[in-house]
């Protein structure tokens, strides 16, 4: 069932919100989307995404029109034929890094040889880990990667069952604050950005409305930029996390560049290669082409330059 | 209703339990079925009732070959088979039709006849063996079936209760003229109640003798006529040739 009644005006617009996309929280909180479309009688429906994979499931099953994901997740889904495109960057997050315990003697990647590292297969931290290995010239097979969900990886690290963890915010921020865990390897560029994706069908039928959604997202983004403290408070409240954690998480988000472009393309191509090596993406697939198909900056360019 | 068995037999897993039984019951006749334990009496009743269709031979009711259960047939099983989740009263009303009150009144009447007035709300687990059997009798009689099959209906009762219930049975018979087939081990009972007695013998059971009791009703218990019949039945049951 599509939300489009006819060409032109959609009956309703279905957005997702997610605790990893502070902008979406702000947008939902202030009701700017509702405001924007109220006059035309267009309803706004919100669905909570508990993770990139859920957001993509929602998109693929036509349950939402816009979904927030990590860039790599969108790429993987695209590789499987999902009819989505990325039209907007909600943030450049440094949401993942390599974390070691408080008194750990691990201080760089080379120290990981022969040790256990927790990561969630196929997610950004996992990609981050592999790219870090590549960058530092550490062969991945020298390290035992233990597949754990993000939260479980965090607790495995604190209870000493793994030596390091490819962490994800807000888990990571909380761990830093509460158990003095250390981020021993960071690189914001190895993260794959926060992608706002739209279903292709929606974009084709209602290009104007894509622009207008980007518009309200812009409003939210600017508010976050202008009010970092209140944004942190809001995030803490919505996601039910501590305020300090929220502050830390937000500090690591760069909201300055909303238009997808060459940097994202590069990051995705690199991520795609890593994923192909680990056979998460079909080795035959043409990553560059897929990336080009996925990222469509035209809407954002049009809207934001206005 | 008339009932006719023609060369009826039943085999369980290759072993014949009863063979070649033929007899005819005229409408309103009471047939006694006697025989040693395990000779196939209950098996025959099951075949007549329609619960068991895997017999050989032909069973006809009112001249029509039957297959399956007839609504007009009542069966009092060898065990009481009360429904454990129903109390005494509800067990008796189980087979009745009509509105609740009527059913309960009728059931109450029969419960009184079998000497169980005042025990309506007991559950089967609270009954003595004989009481359970009497509830089963009340349940079977209450529906006034046109053909009534009774499998050792009074086996768990003391001598006096038994006599009362035998008379109750005859009373019901007088009102409804049901055709009855009665399995019993009590020769006195058979002589007192039945118009004709089929004696089965052997394993597999076959008909040993058919004894007609022409004595008119009401009969007198312990009369010399009945005693003579009793002797005849006992003689035909005698085990001198067989041990099982």
């Amino acid at each position: 069932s599509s939300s489009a009644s006819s060409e032109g005006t959609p009956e309703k617009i279905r957005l997702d919100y997610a605790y990893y996309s502070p902008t979406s929280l702000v947008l939902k909180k202030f009701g700017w989307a509702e405001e924007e479309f109220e006059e035309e009688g267009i309803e706004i429906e919100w669905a909570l995404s508990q993770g990139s994979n859920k957001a993509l499931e929602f998109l693929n099953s036509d349950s939402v029109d816009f979904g927030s994901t990590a860039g790599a997740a969108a790429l993987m889904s695209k590789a499987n034929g999902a009819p989505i495109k990325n039209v907007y960057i909600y943030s450049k997050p440094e949401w993942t890094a390599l974390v070691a315990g408080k008194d750990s003697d691990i201080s760089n990647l080379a120290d990981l040889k022969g040790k256990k590292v927790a990561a969630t297969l196929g997610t950004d931290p996992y990609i981050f880990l592999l790219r870090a290995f590549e960058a530092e010239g550490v062969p991945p097979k020298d390290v035992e990667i233990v597949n754990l969900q993000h939260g479980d990886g965090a607790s495995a690290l604190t209870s000493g069952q793994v030596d390091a963890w490819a962490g994800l915010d807000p888990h990571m921020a909380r761990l830093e604050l509460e158990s003095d865990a250390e981020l021993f390897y960071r690189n914001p560029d190895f993260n794959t950005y926060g992608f706002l994706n739209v279903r292709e069908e929606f974009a084709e039928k209602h290009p104007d409305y894509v622009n207008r959604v980007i518009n309200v997202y812009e409003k939210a983004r600017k508010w976050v930029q202008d009010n970092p403290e209140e944004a942190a408070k809001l995030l803490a409240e919505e996601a039910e996390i501590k305020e300090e954690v929220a502050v830390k998480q937000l500090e690591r988000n760069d909201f300055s560049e909303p238009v997808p472009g060459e940097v994202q393309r590069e990051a995705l191509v690199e991520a795609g290669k890593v994923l192909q090596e680990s056979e998460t993406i079909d080795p035959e697939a043409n990553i560059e082409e897929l990336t080009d198909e996925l990222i469509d900056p035209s809407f954002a360019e049009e809207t934001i330059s206005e | 209703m008339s009932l006719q068995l023609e060369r009826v037999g039943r085999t369980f897993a290759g072993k014949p339990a009863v063979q070649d039984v033929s007899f005819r019951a005229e409408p309103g006749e009471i047939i006694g079925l006697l025989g040693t334990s395990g000779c196939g009496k209950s098996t025959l009743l099951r075949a007549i009732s329609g619960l068991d269709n895997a017999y050989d031979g032909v069973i006809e009711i009112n001249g029509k070959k039957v297959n399956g259960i007839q609504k007009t047939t009542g069966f009092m099983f060898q065990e009481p088979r009360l429904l454990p989740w129903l109390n005494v009263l509800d067990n008796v009303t189980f087979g009745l039709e009509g509105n609740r009150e009527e059913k309960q009144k009728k059931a109450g009447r029969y419960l009184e006849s079998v000497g169980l007035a005042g025990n309506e709300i007991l559950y089967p687990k609270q009954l003595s063996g004989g009481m359970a059997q009497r509830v089963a009798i009340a349940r079977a009689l209450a529906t006034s079936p046109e053909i009534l099959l009774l499998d050792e209906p009074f086996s768990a009762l003391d001598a006096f209760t038994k006599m009362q219930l035998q008379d109750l049975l005859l009373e019901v018979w007088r009102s409804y003229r049901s055709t009855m087939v009665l399995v019993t081990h009590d020769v006195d009972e058979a002589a007192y109640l039945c118009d004709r007695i089929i004696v089965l013998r052997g394993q597999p059971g076959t008909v040993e003798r058919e004894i007609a009791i022409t004595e008119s009703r009401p009969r007198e218990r312990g009369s010399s006529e009945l005693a003579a019949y009793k002797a005849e039945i006992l003689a035909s049951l005698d085990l001198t040739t067989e041990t099982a």
Partner: protein
Amino acid sequence: MAKNQSEVSGIFTAGSKSKPSAAKPKNPFTHPLLLGSIFPLLLVVVWEVLSRLEVFPAYQLPAPSVILGTIAGMAEDGTLWGHVFITSYRVLMGFLLGTAAAVVLGSLVGFYKHAEALFDPLIQAFRSIPSLAWVPLFILWMGIGEPSKIAMIAVGVFFPVYLNIVSGIGGVDRKLIEVGKMYGLNMFQLVRRIILPASLPSFLVGLRSGLGLGWMFVVAAELMGASQGLGYLLVVGQNTLAPETIIASIVLFAVIGKLSDWILKKLETRTLHWQDRAAKS
């Protein structure tokens, strides 16, 4: 030891001489409620103590008092009732739906050879598919609204109820069924008046098992775009590394699950009073 259970033990003790077994006075220390609280209390106390001694650090396993505080906080700001209510509602609806489906299919399969051959293999195969695996399929088929959540819970409820109904029907004594047949009951009446009461013990266990599984399936159900509910709370707790939220949701699951089971158990003792059970020692 073998005191017959059909009597009220208080009644006949009045007139009897001091028989130890007949006149057993209720020992206040062995009252079921009291006994039943021993383990939970012990658990909570040990856990609290260990937490205070920092054997479990708070970011791993917060103390019971903290959990209680979390729950109390949710109760105060009102969110608690929303979570509890919506989840209970979903479980209830799913339970009804799943039970209804199980009764219909279970009766068919329990009764008809052909129905068994037709349906049972597929059902048995589906029975071992984990709840999480259903999530994407349900989203696909039914979207992310309330119906898909309720349907998901119904799936969980269905299997144990179905299994117990089929086996319960199979286990009904032929002798009692024959009584029903002799009184001219048709298939439907036979089910209602003989089979159902006779297989009630099995059916009730199925219901209790099913309800338990219904609670378990809530998490999968509320992964489908829920923004409220105990399953949501759990997943959010896991996604935001908030052990106190996780444990609070576990405690709520346990408490509400127990309550709902208690209702079914009451129903069980009510409806099975006719069973001729041996008294427990």
